[in-house]
């Protein structure tokens, strides 16, 4: 294949893919945006938006707090069985979210562990904390992968040098490694948050789909579809698309190119 033909082929496929995405997203936006002003006054949709924002922000923060030490362990230490552990940690990444939801439902709904937690007041089945837990479980491995790759890309000798200059390991991490992976963290966070906002399968299985209780935006969309309320359905879908596009634009402006700077994606 000549270089000109090769280039033409690549550009053509790119244009077709772009067109396909724009057509799919555009259809919802064109049909959904006119219904948005009225829908935004509906208490149910406002509830869903608020719950989605709250749960996705909390689960994203929880993912960051858990993913950072795990990623550092996988990137920097040489422990026995580390390779196996890394693969086990990736399991939720490859599971269908519905199956992840079933796993959580069985663990927290049918075992002594789950019952003990429930007696202590930590109930996850059909509750808002269940939404957060489902989002956390599904999204954690992806964030670990992003952060692990980012930490590995920082030369460990920078931390070594920092330690010869008086830093403890923790201080060396915060003063040297963390600033160097700042962009990767931001990119990982926006990806995690976006996925949490749209998480459906696992949330449905663990937290259920109860109006005004565990009704996030995707759940609201599902309920509207089930009841045939097409106006509210299109409004919810349009809102989710707008949130995704706006957050992408904000992070692009902040200098984070999600798919270009994140190693390992």
């Amino acid at each position, binding site marked *: 294949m000549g270089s000109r033909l090769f280039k033409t082929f690549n550009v053509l496929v790119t244009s077709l893919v772009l067109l396909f995405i724009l057509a799919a997203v555009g259809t919802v936006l064109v049909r959904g945006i006119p219904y948005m002003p009225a829908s935004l006054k509906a208490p149910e949709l406002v509830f869903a938006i608020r719950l989605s924002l709250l749960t996705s922000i909390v689960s994203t923060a929880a993912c960051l707090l858990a993913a950072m030490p795990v990623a550092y362990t996988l990137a920097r230490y040489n422990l026995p069985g580390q390779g196996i552990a890394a693969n086990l940690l990736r399991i939720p990444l490859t599971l269908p979210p519905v199956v992840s939801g079933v796993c959580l439902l069985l663990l927290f709904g049918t075992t002594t562990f789950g019952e003990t937690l429930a007696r202590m007041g930590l109930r996850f089945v059909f509750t808002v904390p269940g939404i957060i837990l489902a989002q956390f479980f599904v999204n954690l491995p992806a964030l670990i992968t992003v952060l692990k790759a980012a930490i590995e890309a920082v*030369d460990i*000798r*920078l931390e*070594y*040098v*920092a*330690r*010869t*200059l*008086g*830093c*403890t390991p923790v*201080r060396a991490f915060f*003063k*040297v490694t963390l*600033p*160097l992976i700042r962009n990767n963290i931001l990119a990982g966070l926006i990806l995690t948050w976006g996925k949490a906002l749209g998480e459906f399968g696992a949330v449905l299985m663990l937290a259920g789909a109860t109006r005004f209780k565990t009704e996030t935006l995707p759940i609201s969309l599902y309920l509207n579809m089930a009841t045939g309320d097409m106006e509210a359905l299109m409004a919810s879908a349009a809102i989710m698309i707008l949130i995704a596009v706006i957050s992408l634009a904000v992070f692009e402006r902040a200098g984070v190119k999600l798919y270009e700077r994140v190693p390992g994606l």
Partner: protein
Amino acid sequence: MKERLSGRSLRLYRITKKIGEFQLRNISLEFFPGEYFVILGPTGAGKTVLLEVIAGMHTLDAGEIWLGGENITFWPPEERLFGFVYQDYALFPHLSVRENIIFGLKNKGLPLAAIVQELNAVTAMLGIAHFLERFPYTLSGGEQQRVALARALIMKPRVLLLDEPLSALDPCTKETLQQELKRLHQLTGTLYIHVTHDFEEAFFLADRVGVIDQGRLLQVGSTVEVFSRPRTAAVARFVGAENIYQSEIILRDGRKYVTLGEALLQVETDLTGRAGFSIRPEHIQVNSLRQPGNCLPGKVVSVYPKGFYAKVIIDAGERLVAIIVARENNFCPLFPGSLVYCSIAAGVINVFPL
């Protein structure tokens, strides 16, 4: 600066450390206060790992490290405070030159006035005051090296560890910085431990040299001693004694000889039986006429010009490598096939046990 430095020696006692497939094996070595010690070895010999072990970056599998009377084996790097300059300098890319240099002093929590005073002193010493606001990626290799040295020296380290600090530089910058390192060492009086694979660099800088290969310390001594009297074939090969052979030591008329090809060469040694011997290329004199003493006839195989000198390969029953400086070459025109006489003084033949 000098009066504040430690006068304690640093001792490594039977150090063993395995990292992956590589292992440092039973290394014992004493570094004297204020000396310039060069660890010489080929790539993969374990030089960097040894430096990192000294700095405290890896816990030992066995052995001890002592600083004066203190056992510092289990001290973390932040307590040892040994300065470290890596081959590619490992400057913090997100910090300016100024922030890189004062990084350690800020960790110490020194008052700003004291930090500025130390910064001014170290930047004046290294001549880098004019690019303090720049970032590492904008600096040349030589400039980065000076910044890395400043960052380490501003902490007034007990020991300065240098991991092949000159290997990434062009020949001209390398020579300048080699002189700079020597000057800084004299100025600070700190113990410098410098690893390199370049024996010319070691010869220029070192008070003493240690040769390491495959994780083992092969020989330690003054530069002259290690270069002219290597104790094993591996050391001889590494320090550039390109003529390395084995022979029975023959006693005849109260004198000792070794055989090289068909010829007998008189040597000065206490050894008997089978031994190895090495001759540095620059110690072989190539002549057109037979000379008294050890003299081998041979035929030039090839001549490799190297600027001011030439490397000559001679077939004298065994392969001999000699170095001829240009002016001597005029007295003995050398071409492949020329018949020559190789004169080797008994005193320059280094005999070592096998």
